[in-house]
């Protein structure tokens, strides 16, 4: 086996191991892990059977197989980044709502300490 095939095998194996370990230790939610598991399995397939990539390149009309790989990689990373931005926006909205709730509860609690609670 040439060193050119060892590198992708190592990368795919490492990613797989990392994902499974993170999942096992409850450090990663499934919805994020599934994507990376798919990516590492795909890389593993290509590392073991390089012909798959060559065939895919011929089918899509891409002259250099590695360019197809780069194109797909860029696309996957773009989608992941957008998804993470979306998640961050959602989390920001949620923490914002919590901050508002906390402020209101704090004012209510302070009022309760200084005067008898008003029954309306």
């Amino acid at each position: 086996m040439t060193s050119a095939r060892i590198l992708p095998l190592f990368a795919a194996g490492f990613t797989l191991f990392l994902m499974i370990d993170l999942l096992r230790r409850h450090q990663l939610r499934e919805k994020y892990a599934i994507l990376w598991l798919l990516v590492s399995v795909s890389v593993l397939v290509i590392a073991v059977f390089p012909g798959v990539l060559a065939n895919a390149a011929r089918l899509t009309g891409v002259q250099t197989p590695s360019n197809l790989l780069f194109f797909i990689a860029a696309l996957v990373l773009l989608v992941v980044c957008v998804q993470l931005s979306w998640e961050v926006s959602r989390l920001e909205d949620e923490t914002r709502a919590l901050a508002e709730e906390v402020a209101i509860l704090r004012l209510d609690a302070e009022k309760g300490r200084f005067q008898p609670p008003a029954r309306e």
Partner: protein
Amino acid sequence: MTGPGVQRSALAIVPALNERRSVGLVVQSLLRDAPSVDVLVVDDGSTDGTGAVAAAAGALVLTLPYNLGVGGAMRAGFKYALRSGYAAAVQVDADGQHDAAAVPALLSALASADIVIGARFAGEGEYAVTGMRRGAMRLLAATLSRALRTELTDVTSGFRACNREAMTLFARHYPVEYLGDTVEALLIASRAGLKVAQVPVVMKPRLHGTSTQGTLRSTLYLGRASIALSLAFIRRWPHDEVADVNSHEARQEAR
């Protein structure tokens, strides 16, 4: 401060970030010139003791655990006003620009609208802004006037009164981005069928600090305003919640 049993008419919401030097005077002038109004200062993560000064001056203080921006502070204020049963809320800046004596006029104008803007450039008083910024403000005003089909001269004014329908909408959907809080809020309101009106007011010079002006800043201002406005036009708002807030006309007929 309102005790138990007293009818809760209106709440002045004062978003404040490090305004220790002016917030006390703003609270005092509100309590003096608008005596029917309770005062709530939303301390937006200040580090200079703004909240303590406001409380000492006689305001209720909502202390946000960290900085949320004017939009976030107002959202918290609207939520508090709704839950405490206030019939109306009026936003007043903590820098002392907004004249507390104009608050009753804004509130009484709510009889024929859901949102009332205290507007500069509407004939009363003098308010000087320079070149680009003035141009940007006029462009925004013209665009929004057309979109809302009502004459508005000052859409970036933060001096505004809202009734419960507007508060209900804003407690959920008040924009949190810079400038969105003033410009986008009006578009959201009109999308929800709320009626916007304006009352001319005199702005006072700020008590402390300088306004952000200058050519570069004005250009940035125009750019961000355009983005905020374009976004407001294309954004969708949750249908069910907008439907919750009936149109002003429909509610008038129901009465």
